[in-house]
């Protein structure tokens, strides 16, 4: 770290190598949004309560507002931008749309990432396990029901096609 507090950020973001000098000592969320302009991850509360900044770090969900950016050096980050595309949605995204589990969209990026994290660990979750899996993600609009059903349908869809929730596999 030099006197300007610059750090070399070398990591993989959404499957692409990133290597750049960046102002250090910030949160991973700031690095993703301000430096890489990946504004899909939202800052809801900034104190780890709402889950809307959730990203995958080496395949596991973390709250990017509580993660120092330096912790991502040498590792792999997946944000909502790296999960499916408008023409090739991840089954979780498609199911949330079909079911009506999206309203204002503030929680949706974090909710999708948490659901993917859950389905990677547990491809056949019960309703209770889904509720537990997303209990760290606040939603003010939907009442959660359509999100829970959406995740359930995405799990069925993935199992019936023999895929896991892994981003690369699910959007193949």
């Amino acid at each position, binding site marked *: 770290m030099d006197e300007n507090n610059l750090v070399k950020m070398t990591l993989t973001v959404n499957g692409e190598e990133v290597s750049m000098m960046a102002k250090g000592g910030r949160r991973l969320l700031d690095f993703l949004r301000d430096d890489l302009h990946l504004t899909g991850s939202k800052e809801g509360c900034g104190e780890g309560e709402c889950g809307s900044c959730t990203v995958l770090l080496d395949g596991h969900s973390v709250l990017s507002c509580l993660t120092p950016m330096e912790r991502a050096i040498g590792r792999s980050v997946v944000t909502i931008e790296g999960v499916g595309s408008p023409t090739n949605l991840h089954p979780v995204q498609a199911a949330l749309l079909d079911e009506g589990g999206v309203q204002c969209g503030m929680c949706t990026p974090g909710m999708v990432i948490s659901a993917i994290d859950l389905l990677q660990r547990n491809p056949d979750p019960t309703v209770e396990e889904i509720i537990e899996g997303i*209990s760290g993600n606040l*939603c003010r609009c939907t009442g959660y029901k359509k999100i829970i059903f959406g995740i359930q349908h995405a799990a069925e869809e993935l199992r019936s096609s023999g895929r896991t929730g892994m981003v690369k596999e699910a959007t193949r």
Partner: protein
Amino acid sequence: MKLRGIGVGAMMYGLGYGYARPDFSATDIELAPDGTVTIWNGASELGQGLTTLLCQLVAQELGIPYEDTFIISADTGRTPDAGPVSASRSTYVQGNSAIKACRDLKGPLSELAGELLKVDPDRLIYKDGLVQDQEDPNRSISFHNLAGEMHKRGRRVRGSGYHNITTADVDPETSQGDAYASYAWASQLAEVEVDTEMGLVTVLRLASATDAGKAINPKMVEGQIEGGAVQGLGFALMEEMKVEQGEFKNAKLSTYLIPTAADVPMVEPLIVEVFDPTGPYGAKGVAEPATIPTAPTIFNAITNATGKRVRSTPASPERVLRLLGKLEEEEEETQLTFEDMPYPEP
């Protein structure tokens, strides 16, 4: 001990602003040469589905596929003033203005279609992508071709709609009068479990019946009902703004708790459709109506379970334990009870 109880709550709600407060919306639409239609409306999409709804209404009114409609929403440089998105007024006011814009555009459309088909323009109907003579369906022109002809001949291809539901004020002396343009109704039913040791209230089941007038998009109405009930549940059991000297003491999600997926039951939505002749295709607003009855419903269920009545929101564990006599009474601000309210002489 765990006690169970059932409660019912109901409400009526005046849609829009009422009381002579300005309440209007404007929408413009424009027909492209390929038969697609662009809608300009100044109301903000908040996630409730307003843009979807306006496209649905325009598609229905012009008899064209939903995919052929596009919307430019809440662009202050280009969209006409549609008023705010609040007071559960969007479907009702903005929807009506979009329908009026379509009917305005149908004037020149029907005129040209009448000329081309040699039919009285008043006999033309718009459906399935066709403009056809309702008495002789074989005399028709596709909406797509008609749009092209409109442009070739330089006919007017824009339509504007303005809808105003500003009501008269009530009598200043008696407060009597019809304050709102329309009213919505809703009722809810809940079963709760009260843990008398912990003071914790769990809502086991919650059903919500909301009068939508006409559910233009049933899935979106369900979304409003389910989300509204969960917000109401938070109001009933968890949410309390603490204000001291005008300053919020708990303006954080770690201190102002709202329901998580683990705090709520699967809300059972019930859409009631009582046609409202003043609404777009009979529809009216459902947003706030779906939120309002929840707290009284849950409070009634708590009373049914414990025989005691919570007088202020939220019914937090502390308050419930105090109610059950398990915590010492704390000096609480005196709450007006219903029995204390002066009842107006008829």
